[in-house]
């Protein structure tokens, strides 16, 4: 039987993007754009990515990394202030085991011609399957992928 444990922790990442708050926000709100930077990537097989971007709407992703076990991410949109703020609650499993339940706040602040994104996660990491260090590292990779998406849009 799994030894039950909960570790509560959090982190904040700030990142400046060379794009307006409206454009950074849109990369979260537009399902096709979000899929590109959030779900797709080398080594990732996406089995499902569905998003319903409105308060109370769900986003469900099912994927595997390099042929590994199934990973799930279920997200609910808790608060949306266009171009300013998104708050989500999300929970993840690997191989059917819950690994985390989290809340994340994304604030989009105008900075010069660009945007400072402040990402704050408050998490409960479960039963030794995940920890805040790994989650922060994974989130930094996603926010890097978002930068590439914004740069790609600029070039297109």
């Amino acid at each position, binding site marked *: 039987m799994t030894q039950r444990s909960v570790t509560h922790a959090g982190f904040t990442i700030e990142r400046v993007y060379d794009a307006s708050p409206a454009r950074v926000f849109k990369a979260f709100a537009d399902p096709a754009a979000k899929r590109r930077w959030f779900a797709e990537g080398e080594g990732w097989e996406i089995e499902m990515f569905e998003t319903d971007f409105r308060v109370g709407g769900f986003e469900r992703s099912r994927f595997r990394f390099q042929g590994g076990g199934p990973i799930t991410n279920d997200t609910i949109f808790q608060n949306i202030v266009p171009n300013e703020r998104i*708050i989500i609650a999300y929970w993840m499993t690997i191989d059917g085991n819950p690994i985390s339940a989290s809340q994340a706040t994304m604030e989009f602040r105008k900075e010069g011609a660009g945007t400072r994104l402040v990402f704050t996660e408050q998490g409960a990491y479960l039963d030794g399957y995940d920890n805040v260090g790994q989650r922060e590292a994974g989130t930094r990779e996603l926010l890097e992928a978002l930068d590439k998406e914004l740069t790609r849009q600029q070039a297109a």
Partner: protein
Amino acid sequence: MNPRSATHATFVIERSYDAAPSRVFRAWADPQIKPRWFHGPEEWGHGQYELDFRVGGRERLAGGPKGGTVHLYTAVYQDIVPNERIILAYDMHLDDRRISVSLMTVEFKAAGAGTLMTFTEQGAFLDGWDDAGGRERGSVGLLDQLGRELERQARES
């Protein structure tokens, strides 16, 4: 309108109850029992209550003083381990203002014949409408009401 802000804060409340973890857990899980203790001040009367207690299921409590501000709580369940753990995300509204979005973890551990319950809230308090101190006092009041419900059950059994 208040300027937009999000204040992140966490608090933990520990409680010992003279009831087994299964009975304390049930007071959270059973849609008949939970509204007996999970409610606002008595003078508000009975609010509207709904609970779909499963992962991904939702919960809703609306109430308030007669003719006054509507206090709305809505939640979605993220993790349930029977008799051991519940994690949910919830938000609070006063009328149409969203004042907070929080993650709540409740852990149940056997302690002798009773239960040590640990309640952890990780909250985002929004746009200056609420703060962690007020929320902690409100949560203490609810857990007092849970204690009285468990005592009532013990007297009646």
